[in-house]
C-alpha cells in the first residue's frame, strides 16, 4: 500500500470490479456514518468509524472526496475497520515474487505436504491459497474476506508451532497476466509480513523493486533466495548485490536491524519432508525455525500492533489527502476576512450611491419636514410659513406631478431609492459569488455547496422597502412644535401687527388719515421679521438628513451581512468543527 496517499492510485487502488463468481465485496459505503458505529468498541477507538464520519462531513461541506474516488475510500476504510476489529495475535504471511521462483513449492515445503499445485508452466498459480491453524480459521476468513472465493484452496492444520502464522500463497507479480498482479495486490494489502522469494535469474527485476519500494509500506520483509539447487549458483557477490539494491528502499525487517535472508531449495525441502529422495536444502531449517520460534507470541503481538497503528496512520493520511482537508481549512481561513472586506467595500459603494440618490431627494424631504414642523404652528408667523411652504410645494408638486404619484411620497421615494441601490447591491453580490466560485475552484474544492448557502434570489425583501419608508417618515414627521415655541415665535409679528392696528385705530379715532407709508413700512418690517425668523427657525428645524441616511445604510449593511457574510461565517465554523478525529495518532496537517 502506498505510503504517500497522493500517489495512492499507483498502489492497489484500481481494484477490479468483482467477477460474477466472486464473493460479495465489502459492504458499500453507507451515507450516514451511524452505520459505522461500533457498539463493541468505545468511541474514539475505531478510527475507521471516525474517518467515515469525517468523509461524510467533508462531502457535505465542500464536495470532496469526489464521486470518482468514493469506491477507493470506502474500500480502504473497510479494510481498516476489518483490521481494527481483528485480534492482533496472528500474522498474515504472504508470498511475494515473480513467476516460477517457487512460492507455491515453498508453501508446500513449509506445510510439509502439497497445498497448492506447483507446475513447470509459467504463471500457474492464479488464485490465493491459505494454510492456517484450526483455531485461527475464522480469523483468517475474516481478514481475507472479499478476496477468497468458494473454490480457493483453504487448508486447516493442527501444528501448534505455526499457530501464529497464516500462510498465503499468491499469484506472480511479473507475468504477462495483469489479473495475477491485481490478486496479489489485494492480498498484500492485508498482509503483515511478506516472504520475498527470488532466484538468481529474478532478483534484479525492476517490477520487484517497484513493488518493494512503493507498496510495502509498514509490512515486514524476509528475503528467501530459492532454487539454489539449479542454475547459476548462489554466491556472496549475489547476496551483496541484492542487499545493495534493496538498501535504498527502506524495508522493515520483522525484528532487529538487518533484513533476514535465507538461501534454500524448497523443492528439495519438500522432497525431504515427503520422504522422496532430495538434495541439499540450504538454510531451509533456519527459515522454519524463524517462522516457528523466532516469531513468538510477544514479537507477533508487537508486529501486529505496530502494523495496525501504521495502517491507521496511512489510512488517515490518505483520507485527509483525498478529502483535501488541509486545502479546505486554508480556504476557509482566508475566506472570512475576505468576506468582511467585501462587505466593507459594498457598504462604501452603497454609501456613495446613496449620497447621489439623496442629492435629488434631499430638498423635497427637507421641505416636507419643515411642513411637518410648521404643522402645529399658528398665528401670523404660522400663516407666513405655511404660505411660503405652499409656494415651494407648488414647485414640489411639479416634481410630484412628473413622478406621477399621489400622496404616498415616502413610499415612492423609498421605491426610487431601492431602484437606484439595487444594481449596486446585485453587482457586488454577483462578484462575491463568482469570486468564491473561482477561489474554490483554484483550491480544487466544490464551491457549489458553499454557494448554495448564500441566499438565492437577489431581490431584497419587501420588508427592506418598508423599513426605508419608515425611516424617511420618521425623519419627516420628527419635528414637533410645542405651544410655547409657537407662542415665542409669534411674539414679534404679533407685536408689530398690534402696533399697526393700534396705529390704525389711533389714527381713526384721531380722524387722521393713516399714512400708507406707515403700513407699507410696517408690512415690510413684518415680512422682514417673519423671513428672518423663518430662515433661522426652519434651518434649525430642518436638521440634517445625515443620521437617517446612515441608518438606511446600516439597514442595507445588515441585509448584506445577512446574505453574504453570515452564511460564510456559518460555513467556516462548520469547517473548523470537522476533524481531527479522536483516537488518531497525529492530526493530519499539511502532509500530502
Amino acid at each position, binding site marked *: 500500500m502506498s505510503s504517500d496517499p497522493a500517489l495512492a492510485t499507483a498502489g492497489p487502488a484500481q481494484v477490479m470490479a468483482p467477477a460474477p463468481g466472486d464473493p460479495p465485496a465489502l459492504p458499500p459505503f453507507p451515507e450516514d456514518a451511524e452505520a459505522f458505529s461500533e457498539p463493541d468498541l468505545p468511541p474514539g477507538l475505531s478510527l475507521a468509524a471516525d474517518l467515515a464520519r469525517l468523509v461524510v462531513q467533508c462531502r457535505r461541506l465542500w464536495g470532496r472526496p469526489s464521486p470518482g474516488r468514493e469506491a477507493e475510500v470506502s474500500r480502504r476504510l473497510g479494510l481498516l475497520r476489518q483490521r481494527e476489529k481483528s485480534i492482533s495475535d496472528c500474522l498474515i504471511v504472504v508470498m511475494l515474487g*515473480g*513467476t*516460477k*521462483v517457487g512460492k507455491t513449492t515453498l508453501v508446500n515445503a513449509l506445510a510439509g505436504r502439497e497445498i497448492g499445485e506447483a*507446475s*513447470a*508452466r*509459467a*504463471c500457474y498459480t492464479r488464485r490465493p491459497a491459505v494454510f492456517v491453524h484450526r483455531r485461527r480459521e475464522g480469523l483468517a476468513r475474516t481478514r481475507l474476506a472479499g478476496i477468497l472465493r468458494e473454490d480457493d484452496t483453504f487448508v486447516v492444520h493442527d501444528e501448534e508451532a505455526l499457530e501464529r502464522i497464516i500462510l498465503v500463497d499468491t499469484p506472480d507479480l*511479473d*507475468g*504477462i497476466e495483469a489479473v495475477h498482479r491485481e490478486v496479489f495486490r489485494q492480498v498484500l494489502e492485508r498482509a503483515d509480513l511478506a516472504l520475498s522469494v527470488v*532466484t*538468481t*535469474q*529474478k*532478483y*534484479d*527485476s*525492476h*517490477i520487484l*523493486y517497484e513493488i518493494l519500494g512503493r507498496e510495502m509500506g509498514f509490512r515486514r520483509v524476509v528475503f528467501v533466495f530459492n*532454487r539454489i539447487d*539449479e*542454475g*547459476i*549458483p548462489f*554466491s556472496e*557477490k*549475489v547476496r551483496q*548485490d541484492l542487499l545493495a*539494491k534493496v538498501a535504498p528502499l527502506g524495508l522493515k525487517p520483522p525484528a532487529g536491524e538487518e533484513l533476514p535472508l535465507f538461501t534454500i531449495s524448497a523443492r528439495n525441502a519438500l522432497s525431504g519432508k515427503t520422504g522422496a529422495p532430495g538434495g541439499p536444502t540450504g538454510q531451509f531449517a533456519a527459515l522454519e525455525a524463524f517462522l516457528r520460534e523466532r516469531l513468538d507470541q510477544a514479537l507477533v503481538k508487537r508486529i501486529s500492533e505496530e502494523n495496525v497503528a501504521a495502517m491507521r496512520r496511512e489510512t488517515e493520511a490518505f483520507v485527509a489527502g483525498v478529502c483535501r482537508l488541509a486545502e479546505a481549512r486554508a480556504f476557509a481561513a482566508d475566506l472570512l476576512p475576505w468576506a468582511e472586506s467585501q462587505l466593507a467595500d459594498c457598504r462604501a459603494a452603497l454609501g456613495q450611491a446613496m449620497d447621489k440618490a439623496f*442629492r*435629488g431627494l434631499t*430638498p*423635497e424631504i427637507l421641505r416636507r419636514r419643515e411642513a411637518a414642523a410648521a404643522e402645529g404652528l399658528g398665528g401670523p408667523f404660522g400663516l407666513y410659513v405655511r404660505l411660503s411652504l405652499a409656494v*415651494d410645494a407648488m*414647485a*414640489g408638486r*411639479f*416634481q410630484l406631478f*412628473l413622478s406621477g404619484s399621489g400622496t404616498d411620497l415616502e413610499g415612492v421615494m423609498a421605491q426610487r431609492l431601492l431602484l437606484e441601490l439595487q444594481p449596486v447591491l446585485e453587482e457586488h453580490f454577483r*462578484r462575491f459569488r*463568482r*469570486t468564491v*466560485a*473561482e477561489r474554490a*475552484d*483554484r483550491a480544487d474544492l466544490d464551491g457549489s455547496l458553499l454557494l448554495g448557502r448564500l441566499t438565492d434570489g437577489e431581490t431584497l425583501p419587501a420588508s427592506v422597502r418598508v423599513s426605508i419608508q419608515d425611516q424617511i417618515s420618521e425623519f419627516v414627521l420628527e419635528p414637533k412644535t410645542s405651544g410655547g415655541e409657537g407662542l415665542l415665535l409669534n411674539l414679534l409679528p404679533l407685536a408689530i401687527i398690534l402696533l399697526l392696528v393700534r396705529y390704525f385705530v389711533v389714527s381713526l379715532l384721531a380722524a387722521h388719515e393713516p399714512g400708507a407709508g406707515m403700513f407699507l413700512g410696517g408690512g415690510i418690517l413684518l415680512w422682514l421679521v417673519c423671513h428672518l425668523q423663518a430662515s433661522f427657525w426652519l434651518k434649525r428645524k430642518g436638521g440634517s438628513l445625515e443620521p437617517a441616511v446612515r441608518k438606511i445604510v446600516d439597514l442595507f449593511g445588515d441585509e448584506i451581512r445577512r446574505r453574504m457574510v453570515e452564511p460564510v461565517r456559518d460555513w467556516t465554523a462548520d469547517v473548523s468543527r470537522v476533524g481531527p478525529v479522536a483516537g488518531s495518532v497525529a492530526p493530519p496537517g499539511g502532509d500530502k
Partner: protein
Amino acid sequence: MKPQPGLLPAFAAEEDAPERGAELPSFPGPGGREELLGRADDLARWVEVAIATAKGAPARFADLDLTGLELGLLLLRDRLLPEARADLELPVVGVFCGGTNVGKSTLVNSLVGEVVTESGSTASKTKRLIGIGSPERLRQVVQAHPAFALLPASELKNPDTRRHAVYRPEHADLPGDLPVLLDTPDIDSSDTRCRDATRYGLAMADFVVWVTTQQKYKDESGIKFLNEAMALARCRFDVFNQALPRHAEALEDMMRDYGERWPENERAIFRIAERTGITDGLLPPADLDPLREKLREAQADRRRLKGQAIRHGLAQAGNRLGQAAKAMVRRQREWRRVIASMNQRFEASLFDPLRRLPGHEAPFELQAAIMRVLGPRIQTPVSDLVSQINRSAGEALSWTLSKLPFGGWLGGAGGETPDPVDRRDQADLRQARQVLEDARFDLLEFARGKAEGSGHPLWVKFHQELKALDLPTPESLGGRLDAHFRESSQRMLLPVIVKFESELERFCDDNPSLITAMKAVVPGFSALAGLAAAILSIHTLTILPGASEYILGGLALPVFEHLKGLLPENLLKLSESLANEPFIQKAREDFGKTRRAIFLTAADWLYQPVGRLLTPIDLRGKDVALEVTRLQDLWKEVFGDVL
C-alpha cells in the same frame, strides 16, 4: 470579422487534406528505388518531427500511446533506408536478447569459442551493445547506420561510454558462414539504461535470437519487449536455455503461447540443457550445433531474409505507426478545436463588447474642432454679438435651471455644465471595467464547465493550467485601464484631432467659395453663428445630449428637422457636400479605430497569459497509412525477386 493584427492568432483553416512534400511525385509515383527511398525518407522525417512535437508539448499528448511512432522511425531510418540503399547486400546481423542471467553472454561466447564478452552471476553485466564478427563486416554494418559508431571493447572501461555505439572485443571473430552477432543488455534489469540500449540493437537486427528460461518465458517485460521486436523483425530463434528434464511442460507451453501471440513471425526453437560445473564459462560445442546450423542458413539466404524481414516490418510496425499517427493527428485537430472555442469565447465576452463601446462613434472632439474652425470663418460682427448673447443666455438658463428644485434633473450635477467628452469617457471606462471583470470570471467558469462536462483530457489539463495562472485581479485591471486610457488618449487621439483640424482648415482655405457661399446664404442665420456651426456639425456627425451649448444643439436638431423644409436649398446642399467630404469620413474612422485600439490593448492584458497556453500544435498533415501502403507496394516491386 477580421482579427486585429497582433491581438488574436489567425484562425487556421482545418487542414485535413494530406500535404505532399515538394520533391515527392504525385500519387502514385513512377515507382522504382528512387521513389522508395524518397518516400521513406520523407515519412521518416515526418515521424521525427511528430516525435519531437509530442515531446515538446507533453501536456497535450501525455495520455496517448505513441510507441508506434518510435517503432516506425526505427523501421524507416534504421531498417528500410540503409538496406534499400545497399540493395540488401549488408551483412546479416542477429541480435541476442533476453532477461537477466538467462545466459545470453555465455551462449555468445560459446558460439565464438572463447570468452569475449563478460558474463557473471551478478546481474546486468552487459550494459552496451557488443558486436561479434569480422571487423570488416561490423564496420560495414555500423557505417550504414550513421548514428552509431564502432569502438573497441577496451573503451568500455571508461566511465562515460557512448550509448549509440557497438563495441567489438579483441578476438571476437566468427567463421565467415555465420552472421554478425550482437550481444545486448538485459531487457528486464532494474537499470533503465540497459533496457533502452537493447532497442538500439533492434535497429540493426535482421533476426532476433530470444534467449529465455523456464522462469522467464512468460514475464511481462519479456513479452512486452517481444511485442515491439516482432513488429520489426520477422525471424525469431527461441532458445530455451538452462533446461532441465522437468521443464518439458514449460517448453511445450512456451511453444504454444509464443505461436499464438506472434503467428506472423517465422521461428525456430532450440533447447539447450543446463550444464553445471563448466569451468571455462563455455558450453560444449555440441550443444550449440542446431543453433549454429540455423545461423548458417540465415547467413546463406541473407537477401531473402532481409527482404522478407522488411516487408514484415512494413506490415506490422507500419500498421502501428499509422495508428499512432492517426491518434496524433486527431489530437491535433481536437486541440485546434479547443483553441478555436476559447478564442471564440474571448471574442464574444471580451473583444467584441470593447469594440462596440458607444464612445467610439461619438467624436465630440471632432465636433468641437469643426466649430472651432468654421465658427470664426462664417462669422459677421452682428453674429459675433448675437453668439455672445446666445452664450450668456445659455449660461443664465443653466444657472436658473440649477436653482430650481427640478433643475437637478435636467442638469444632472446642479450648476456645472458636464463635459460631454468626460461623460462619454467615464461611461465607456465604467463599461469597459465591467467587461474586463466579467470576462475574467467567465473565462474560468467556461473552462471548468468544459472540463467537467466533456471530461476530455485536453480540457481537463487546460483547466488545470488555467487555474495555475496568475490572472490579474479586476481591481488592478480597472486601475491599469484608467491610467492607460488617460495616457493613450493624450498620445494617440490628439494627433488625429489635430490632423483633422488642419485638414479642415486647408479645406476651408482651398474652398473660399464655399465659405463665402455659406456666409452669403446664411444671412438670416449668420447672426446665430454658433447655431449654424452646431447645425452643420449635427448634420455631419451625430450628436448626443450634453451641456447647455450642446443642449441647444440637441434642441436645434428637431428644430432643424422642422425647418429643413424652409431653409434655402443652398444651405442644405452645402451641408451635404461638406458631409460627403472624404476627409471627414476618414477622420471619423480614424478616431473610432484609434479609440478601439486603446481599449483592445487593455483586453490584451487579460488575453496574453491565456494566449500563451493556447499555442497550436504545429504538425504537417500526412496520410501515414497511405504512405505505408505505398511503401509496401514499392518494396514488393523493387525487391520482389527475393520475396
